[in-house]
């Protein structure tokens, strides 16, 4: 009896994990259209609070390394490599914002220095621990896009 419960629990946990994973659009299958990437990558609505974390964190998006963001003026050191993102949601629709974060090269030019955060179109000699991996998970992308959506002036 005990055995059975453990098994059942294990089975449902692994089903959960599989279904969450299966719902993620794999990086190579993200569809870019005229309005950018309109479909969610995960089907789970983005969480702007965690998105703000992704934006700040050096280990996640580290968007602040290149972009100033008035709303985060409490954080030290905003980069100037890219444009300030104040009011960015007034400039772009959600689909475009998602497309920029997924693969900026597909939206700007091949020359852009903005990394593709959900792309496997990587540079040469990727370090072993990052091989075949995207910088952000699909849900991190949804979260940071949800956060960008809040940047209105």
């Amino acid at each position, binding site marked *: 009896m005990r055995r059975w419960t453990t098994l059942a629990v294990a089975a449902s946990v692994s089903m959960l994990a599989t279904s969450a994973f299966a719902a993620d659009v794999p990086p190579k299958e993200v569809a870019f259209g005229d309005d950018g990437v309109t479909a969610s990558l995960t089907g789970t609505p983005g969480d702007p609070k965690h998105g703000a974390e992704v934006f700040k964190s050096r280990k996640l998006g580290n968007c602040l390394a290149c972009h100033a963001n008035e709303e985060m003026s409490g954080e030290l050191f905003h980069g100037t490599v890219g444009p300030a993102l104040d009011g960015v949601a007034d400039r772009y629709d959600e689909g475009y914002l998602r497309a920029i974060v997924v693969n900026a090269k597909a939206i700007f030019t091949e020359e852009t220095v903005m990394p593709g955060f959900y792309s496997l179109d990587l*540079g040469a*000699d990727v*370090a072993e621990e990052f091989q075949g991996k995207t910088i952000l998970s699909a849900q991190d992308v949804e979260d940071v896009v949800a956060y960008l959506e809040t940047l209105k002036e």
Partner: protein
Amino acid sequence: MKSMMMKSGLLAAAAVLALTAGVSADPVDEQLVIDGQEMITRAKAPEGHPFDEVLSGWLYREAETRKLEEDSFDNPGMLSVEEGEEIWNTVEGTAGKSCASCHDDAADTMAGIAANYPKWDPDAKRPINIELQINKCREENMGAEPYAFDKSGQKELTAYIKHQSLGDPVSVDLSQGEMQQWWERGKDVYYTRTGQLNLSCASCHEQNNGNYIRADHLSQGQVNGFPTYRLKTGLTSLHNRFRGCVRDTRAEIPKAFSDDLMALETYVTWRGTGLSVETPSVRQ
């Protein structure tokens, strides 16, 4: 009332402008003088260079950091140079010799030498830098073990030798041996995007010098001050810096003195043609 509001709006706008000007990202327009000797921190770029003017990293640093380099007594890197001098005079190896046994006073024999490195090494058939020349003399002339990368005083002795060229303009002779081919290869390395972040040296130091990347004011990535004293990490060798910059793109870190990094050193040194050797420079 309305016009008052307009005015304060304008004032606020002016204040914002002033603030922005305060964090202005341009390199400073100042002269670096070290112990009374004028350094060349701006030079006309050599033909075929992507810039019109090459600029020393000193111009991009904060005032306090810049100041530390202006006086040998304040420059913490000078302690390492003194250690290098001791090594120069220390007997090592089976031949019972020191560097000074053959080269006497470095102030005479090494003056201006390092400003022309890397050079072509006809024996090894590849470019040689000061670190590798030290190892060559240790092995062939002293009967001593070569230094491992960054170990046993390699950085200090290199800094001592390069310091004998303080103020001399950097110039590499690409007509020697196969230097031109190594330059080409170094150029490929410079423009190759690497790592998960997919960035090349040019992404930061060519396209974005003058901009801030988080807390760092990006310079042209010049090598004329190496080994350099970094406020965070102390005396830092050039290949350590190269490795750090590549690591930050989340790429495999190339080996010090590997063909790729020797090619890169050749190419990047050329990119700073005409700048004064500043060793040991002070950087953040």
